[in-house]
Each structure stands twice: as structure tokens, then as C-alpha cells.
């Protein structure tokens, strides 16, 4: 009989190491408060040994509990000066507590499964009758997670939007410079911040910025700021209005 194959299948059935332990304890009809640690450790390791290789992502936790079992076993072997008295902690206690807690979670999940099965067979309306517009229901109660998720999605979408723009369009300095001059000829000046906020992408804005710098450097345009915190305006050099004062 190929026992290794059957063990291999079985490990996947368990939700985790505690699930496996509980299974072994029940199978051997062991009292959870008095676990024969040597037996259970052997049984447990048997399951792990029959895995062809350990997938650390999934099975690290199985190894962790194996280590705990071996540790408890070693503690049990240490000869004690006096027999286990009441105020001395049983080395198994830490494991027993975890198993008892887990056992309840497990029981609850079985119970929820039953309830879920019945509930999934009941159908509820997800729409309003024709008299009312669906807009009236298109509102939702939002949680903190919804809020955060919404922001996260927004950033992702923005990221993609930017990637798309860069891929789809190539901006050259030369073209951008011509475009700026044309705008200036039509509108006499442009508002620096306003101009940049209307660029579709970061890349386009960057190219525009360098184009402007180039135009300023070659003295074709001039950038003027009347005072701090005021808008910077860009003019064609030959069209700068005379200062009023």
C-alpha cells in the first residue's frame, strides 16, 4: 500500500497544524487534557515526513507546531525532583490551551457552514420595482475599508492612466515650444500654474516645463511674477505690456 501518497493528499485537507493535531487526538480517542505527547508527536511527524517536500509558504506553520511538540516532549523527559505538583505548570498546558481555543473556532465554522447553506438558498431582491429609478438605490453604506480601498483603487487607476499616456504619446521639446508660442500669439499670455494643471500627464507637464525654460533661456518669452504667491505669467518678449507705474 502506498501510504506516502495517502498522507500527501491528507495534509491538504487540514486548515493548519492545529486542525491536524485535533484530528489525530480525536482519531486516537485521546483526552485533550491529557495528551500522550510522545505518541502524538510521532503521529504528527509521520504526516510531515510523508510529504515529498515541504512547501515553506504553506507548511512553515506545520513545522512550527512540530517544534513545539518536540520541545514539550523534551520538557516532559526532564526528571523532576518531586512529582508534578499543583503549582507546577504542565509543559503541555500551552498546547492544550491553544487546541481548546482552536476547537471552538472549528466548531463555530462548522455551524456557520450550515447556516450559510440554508441562507444561500434564499433569494433577495437586488433591484427596485420599475416605478422607482435605480439611482435611488445606487447609494451604499461605506466603511473605513471602503474609503481606503477607494483611494487605493483611485491611485492605481491614476497610475495606469499615466502609463497609458506615456505609451500613447511622445512629446518632443520642439513641438511643445511651437505649441507654446502659438498659444501666446493667440492669447497674449499664459498663466503658468493654470497651464500645467491642464497637462494630461506628468510627462507632458515635464516636457512643457523644459520647453518653457528653453524659450526663456533663448529670450523668446519672459516669465513675470508680480509679487510673491501671485500667479506667474508668461509673455512673448515682443508683446510684454508696458509697466503701469
Amino acid at each position, binding site marked *: 500500500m502506498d501510504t506516502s501518497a495517502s498522507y500527501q493528499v491528507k495534509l491538504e485537507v487540514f486548515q493548519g497544524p492545529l486542525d491536524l493535531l485535533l484530528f489525530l487526538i480525536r482519531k486516537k480517542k485521546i483526552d485533550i487534557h491529557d495528551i500522550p505527547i510522545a505518541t502524538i508527536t510521532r503521529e504528527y511527524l509521520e504526516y510531515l515526513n510523508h510529504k515529498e517536500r515541504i512547501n515553506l509558504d504553506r507548511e512553515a506553520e506545520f513545522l512550527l507546531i512540530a517544534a513545539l511538540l518536540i520541545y514539550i516532549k523534551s520538557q516532559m523527559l526532564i526528571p523532576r525532583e518531586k512529582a508534578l505538583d499543583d503549582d507546577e505548570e504542565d509543559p503541555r498546558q500551552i498546547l492544550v490551551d491553544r487546541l481548546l481555543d482552536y476547537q471552538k473556532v472549528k466548531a463555530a465554522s462548522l455551524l456557520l457552514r450550515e447556516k450559510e447553506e440554508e441562507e444561500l438558498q434564499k*433569494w433577495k*431582491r437586488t*433591484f427596485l*420595482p*420599475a*416605478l*422607482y429609478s435605480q439611482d*435611488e*438605490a*445606487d*447609494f*451604499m*453604506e*461605506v*466603511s*473605513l*475599508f*471602503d*474609503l*481606503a*480601498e*477607494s*483611494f*487605493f*483603487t*483611485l*491611485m*492605481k*487607476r*491614476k497610475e495606469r*492612466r499615466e502609463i497609458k499616456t506615456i505609451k500613447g504619446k511622445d512629446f518632443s521639446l520642439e513641438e511643445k515650444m511651437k505649441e507654446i508660442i502659438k498659444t501666446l500669439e493667440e492669447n497674449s499670455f499664459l*498663466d503658468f*500654474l*493654470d497651464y500645467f*494643471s491642464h497637462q494630461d500627464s506628468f510627462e507632458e507637464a515635464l516636457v512643457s516645463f523644459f520647453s518653457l525654460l528653453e524659450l526663456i533661456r533663448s529670450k523668446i518669452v519672459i516669465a513675470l511674477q508680480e509679487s510673491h*504667491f*501671485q*500667479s506667474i505669467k508668461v509673455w512673448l518678449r515682443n508683446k510684454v505690456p508696458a509697466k503701469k507705474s
Partner: protein
Amino acid sequence: MKNRLKEVIESLIFISLEPLTLEKIKSILTEFPDGEVELAIKELLENYVSNERGIQIIQSAGGYLFSTKPEHDSWIRRLLKVERKNKLSPAALETLSAIAYHQPTTLAEISALRGVDSTHTLKTLLIKKLIKIVGRKKSPGKPLIYRTSDKFLTHFGLNSIQDLPSPEELSKILEEESILEEEDKDSQ
């Protein structure tokens, strides 16, 4: 058995997204003779007429569907209004998230971030008092500056704005497949 059939038909009409035609009902209830199905529908309709009920089955567009009664309309409108009161549309939620994570911020910044003009949703959020105006920016046009309000904190059970899940925490939770499917779903 006849009662059972009547019940099944009632549940089908209830859950159907569009007026449920006789043909459709028959095509589902293939186990039952057409005559029985027709009789069951007739009785079902009679039940609804004779009993005092808040809902009715009407015939529309060649099929049967549930509807409320016209005389209850004003109550129903009240309910729909109440239900909307503490809720947000997907667009409003998105705008709120942009403000929460980018505050203090302006309409132009929010609109740029979302890639959609957000004037309308901003107004909604102001009316719901989830955001507040805290001043004007010293930049061209002196745009209004927005922040989330105390009501925002209470609504989301936060002690302070620092308690918002951080983008890093979120990407830990959300990074991977599922989010990307929600592509460009703007409800504006």
C-alpha cells in the same frame, strides 16, 4: 401540489428582474401541465386582489411583476430618502477618499487626481457635512481648501485622521489581482 405550484410562481415573479411572461413561467415549470400553471397564476392573482396587501402583482409589458401601490408612494419616497441619507454614491466615496488622504486640498487637485470634474460630488459631501472648507489657498484664483470634518471621523469610527489605514497597509492587504478588475468604473 397546486398550492406548491402557486408558491413557486409567486417566488419567480418576486425575483424576476423583468416582467415575467406566461411563456417564460411555463418554460421553467416544464414538469407541470400548462393548464395547471395557468390555473395557479389565476388563483395567485385573485389572492392578491382579495386580500389586503401592501404589494400587488400587476401585468405589464406582457408579463407579471410585483409592484407597490400608488397610495403608498409618499411613504416609500420617504424611505428611499432616509436610506440615502447616510449613504454615498461610488463617486462621492471616491472623492471623499481623495480628500481624506490628500488634505488639505482643492477642487482642482481632487479633479486632477480622479480625472473627473468633482464639483458635484464635493457639494454632496459638504451637504452631508463629511468635509468642510477651511480657507483659501494663496495661489491663482484663490481656490477653497477642503478638509474632512469631525463628522467624518465619527462616521468611520476614527479617533484622528492619523488612524486611517496607511497606503502601505492597504497595498499589503489589497495588492494583487482583484483590484485591477475594477477598471475605470466612474459613476459620474
